[in-house]
């Protein structure tokens, strides 16, 4: 009897302690997908003369984390990279429409 309880407990502990199973599964494809979006947006920003260097830095960091197998962190960092890329495109679009000389030059 004791043995059975022990076995159940043992397997339960094993389950809980396995990182891939204790937390909801996160496949590398999620971070990869976000990273791909970030890359394509960053490319677009550069084509609009508005790329930010920090986007590239974060994409590199995300890639490194993915290689290390840290999928959760990789996803977080890839999301930040995508945000930077989106903001840089917004800046470039806005500037194309509304750049101006400063008022003291008029």
């Amino acid at each position, binding site marked *: 009897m004791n043995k059975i309880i022990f076995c159940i407990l043992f397997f339960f502990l094993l389950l809980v302690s396995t990182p891939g199973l204790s937390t909801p599964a996160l496949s590398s494809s999620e971070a990869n997908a976000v990273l791909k979006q970030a890359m394509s947006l960053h490319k677009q*920003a*550069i084509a609009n*003369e*508005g*790329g*930010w*260097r*920090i986007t*590239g830095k974060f994409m590199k960091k995300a890639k490194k984390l993915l290689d290390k197998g840290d999928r959760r962190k990789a996803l977080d960092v890839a999301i930040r990279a995508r945000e*930077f890329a989106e903001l*840089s495109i917004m*800046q*470039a679009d806005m*500037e*194309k429409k509304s*750049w*101006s*000389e*400063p008022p*003291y*030059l*008029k």
Partner: protein
Amino acid sequence: MCHHYRLSILLLLFSLLLVNPLLYAGPKEDLVRYQGYFQKRFSNLSLDDLSNGLYNFDEGRREQWEAIMEFPPYEIAIEEGEELFNKPFGNGKRYADCFDNGGVAIAHTYPRFNAKTGKVQNISAVINECRVANGEKPLRYLKGEIVKLLTYMADTSRGKKIDIQVPDDPRALAAYEDGKRVYFTRRGVRDFACYHCHWEAAGQKIRGNVLSTAVGQVTHFPSYRSKWGAVGPIQRRYKGCMKNVGAVPLKAQSDAMNNLEYFHTHMSNGISMNAPGTRF
């Protein structure tokens, strides 16, 4: 009634047509405004003084600079550049054949608008065009042999006043205006445009550096920089400033960069060339 209405619209249109040329500011009017801004703000400095950049505002750095200039670190580049410049290509032609006046004392008139291509060309672009036309491989931009050639050519313009022409061609004006856009565009994660540092903050300190005035910046390029340990052209410097505000720098020799150089050089029209120069 209806008649009156139409008449007033016609009058309005007519008056707009009359006023418009007055409202329209071209490169000539820009020059007066831009140079006027700094002349008013730094009335103790002449236009030629402005070409000394940050050394106008930093006594300590100016002394170091004057000491360096006793044995200018760009002298070798001038000599090597002259040798390269005079060396014939495989087909016997020379660089001199591709430029006005054999390439001597013309650097102060570049970049120029090229009516054939409808685009702006700096000397580097003409050098490579010349090489390709004569069966040679183009040189890489920003570093190495091309910079030595630029250094020699700039030296032959020393003392000449910058003289950038925007000819009466809508494409030339468009290139100039595009350069203005690039200049006044905020970029990078810091959201800075060139003017944030080199107009309103000129003469002030930023992270240990005193900022030079936008007008007068081009006259000593290509320039030796201790940071580079070499002479470099102005587009290399532009890239540095773009990186400093967190932007992916524009590509050297791209239309945007060339137009920026066109606009930025034009605002120093009338100021004497003192290139090559040195900066830390």
